[in-house]
């Protein structure tokens, strides 16, 4: 495995220890960046040809296509970096439609002054994440913006995957009676970022859950007959609440979750309590929520638990015809409440 922490600047690049505008100018500096940073990390036949577009072989099944931009600050955080996030984020978006992820593009927007070493480490981590997820980065682009016009490094990735025949997963397919499974503890990524960004020191550091989920999805699909897995979402921004709101709304069914069953680690719970945040609204980068036919929920849950990315999977609730479009929770003391979608960023409370 590549050493993710050490990156040695290749000799030809040593004149410029930081990114300068010329690195995005399309001239010699740009070419050196491609030749000595991107190609050695990402190299594959489609990319190595360095054409204006990559040419890819046809494959069986329907095409799934997605894109996402990554602007996380800081670039490196406990459990990952913007590099892993940029790969796993798009891989997971594909996986949530049941697609097998194959190819990614990578567009970098770099701020003048970014240490070349930081870019090198991001790219190394990105390449490792792509290898781990079995996807190839087949096309890319780099632009440099003046200092103060960006925040170090932004990455956009687009992803292509193929959906095997018979796989039909979508947010509008949930029905009353379907069960709600979550693949593990929630809120880890958001609180990991929050704790480093705000300089909060907790007794046990909170680590991002950033990981690819297509392997877990494949194991779930293997365990269930076609159509039994109705909907999948990776609860990123907006957290579990936003994911369930979207599925309930698109499928026009209600959702009832049992609040005490929702897995949250002690440190995340404590950090949320301290800051007045609700883990239900906090971002995840390596979890999924699945809406599953009740007839095979046990088998799917067992398959999830025997996969490393779903070890802590749990049944947390059910879809219902009672209150279409509404997300409700049964609380620990046996009462019920609404879970409203959050407006935007959650704000830490005063006391």
């Amino acid at each position: 495995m590549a050493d993710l922490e050490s990156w040695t600047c290749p000799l030809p690049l040593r004149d410029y220890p930081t990114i300068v505008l010329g690195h995005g100018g399309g001239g010699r500096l740009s070419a050196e960046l491609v030749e000595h940073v991107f190609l050695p990390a990402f190299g594959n036949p489609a990319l190595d040809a360095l054409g204006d577009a990559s040419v890819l072989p046809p494959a069986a099944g329907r095409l799934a296509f997605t894109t996402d931009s990554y602007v996380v600050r800081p670039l490196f955080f406990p459990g990952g970096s913007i590099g892993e996030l940029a790969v796993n984020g798009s891989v997971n978006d594909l996986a949530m439609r049941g697609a097998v992820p194959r190819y990614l593009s990578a567009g970098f927007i770099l701020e003048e002054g970014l240490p070349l070493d930081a870019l090198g480490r991001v790219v190394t981590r990105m390449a490792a994440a792509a290898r781990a997820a079995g996807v190839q980065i087949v096309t890319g682009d780099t632009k440099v913006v003046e200092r103060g016009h960006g925040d170090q490094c932004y990455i956009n990735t687009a992803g292509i995957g193929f959906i095997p025949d018979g796989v039909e997963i979508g947010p509008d397919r949930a029905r009353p009676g379907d069960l709600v499974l979550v693949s593990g503890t929630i809120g880890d990524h958001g609180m990991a970022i929050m704790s480093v960004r705000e300089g909060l020191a907790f007794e046990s550091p909170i680590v991002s859950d950033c990981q690819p989920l297509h392997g877990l999805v494949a194991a779930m699909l293997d365990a269930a007959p076609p159509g039994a897995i109705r909907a999948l979402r990776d609860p990123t921004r907006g957290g579990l609440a936003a994911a369930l709101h979207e599925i309930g709304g698109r499928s026009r069914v209600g959702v009832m979750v049992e609040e005490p069953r929702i897995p949250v680690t002690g440190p995340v719970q404590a950090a949320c309590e301290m800051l007045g945040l609700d883990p239900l609204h906090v971002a995840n980068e390596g979890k999924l929520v699945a809406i599953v036919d009740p007839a095979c929920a046990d088998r799917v849950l067992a398959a999830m638990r025997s996969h490393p990315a779903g070890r802590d999977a749990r049944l947390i609730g059910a879809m219902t015809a009672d209150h279409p479009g509404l997300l409700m929770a049964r609380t620990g003391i046996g009462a019920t409440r609404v879970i409203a979608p959050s407006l935007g960023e959650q704000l830490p409370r005063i006391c």
Partner: protein
Amino acid sequence: MKYLTEFRDGPAARSLAADIRRSVTRPWVLMEVCGGQTHSIIRNGIDQLLPPELELVHGPGCPVCVTPLELIDKALAIAARPGVIFCSFGDMVRVPGSEKDLFRVKSEGGDVRIVYSPLDALRLARQFPDREVVFFGIGFETTAPANAMALHLARREGLRNFSMLVSHVLVPPALEAILSSPTRRVQGFLAAGHVCSVMGYWQYPPIARQWSVPIVVTGFEPLDLLEGIRRAVRQLEAGRAEVENAYPRAVTEEGNRPAQALLAEVFEATDRAWRGIGVIPKSGWRLTEAYRPFDAEARFDVGAIRTVEPARCRAGEVLQGTLKPHQCEAFGKECTPRTPLGATMVSSEGACAAYYHYRPLPGAAGGGTDG
């Protein structure tokens, strides 16, 4: 973490609730003073376990909600100044002033920073000696000690670029104002546990005696709240009006004496306007003579700003327990967290926000659909 699970235990909560149901023989109205208690009650659905005779009304203990509009406008004016770093608790940044909020000022180029402690603001002042760092010092007695400590340190270090926009408010005068109101319905109080952890509860027996109301110092977890309610109901049913401490793991009668000494050094009592309620005599703290140089209002000359409250917002009635959030005609219609008429809709301790987030909207299948 044990505290969190232990004091949220379902079977124990239901057994306490059953005890309350058995003790109640006629209608009673209790007020939980603190907005944090309101949120816990609504979020956990504690009111759903109580007998119909027992009504909980929500008190004024939301510091963000009672901060006058005028002061928020002053904050916005200071935050928009070039050279200023304006520090606030996160709660405050979305509270509407008369034209905008701190978020808007930030997006327009103001340097507004969310901090977790006034000591963070102090650190910024040391770090940027050529900038003016202002902390928005609001809150009840709970947040006051940290603010007092920040000012104490700033004075000791001779930090000239640090100041505070102070609008501290106090619980006991607010309780007396509620009790002396002609529309008073409240028959007993669940006193705010965190305020009492600082101030103790030695101030309460005269109030309980004078107005014949039980006052029970109460915490914030489901079992804490149910225990507070149980004790208040027992007193009411027995015709007693005493002060009890149902939160002994955090509160003593005398409170935190060193904190109180620091507060007395930095702050002195003053008449204070409460948003939506009006001026309550001796209900706030301002800086003492020795700390006046740290007064942001004087330093930035915003004392002349005058503002009128919008007539549509009935938050004042909500804060005094005479109106429930969903009884307001604007609730969930023109007033939502996205387009708030008042602070009670956006503060994490605001009663209107609690109803909006945790309960189905009246007449709508979709519940809170903002965002």
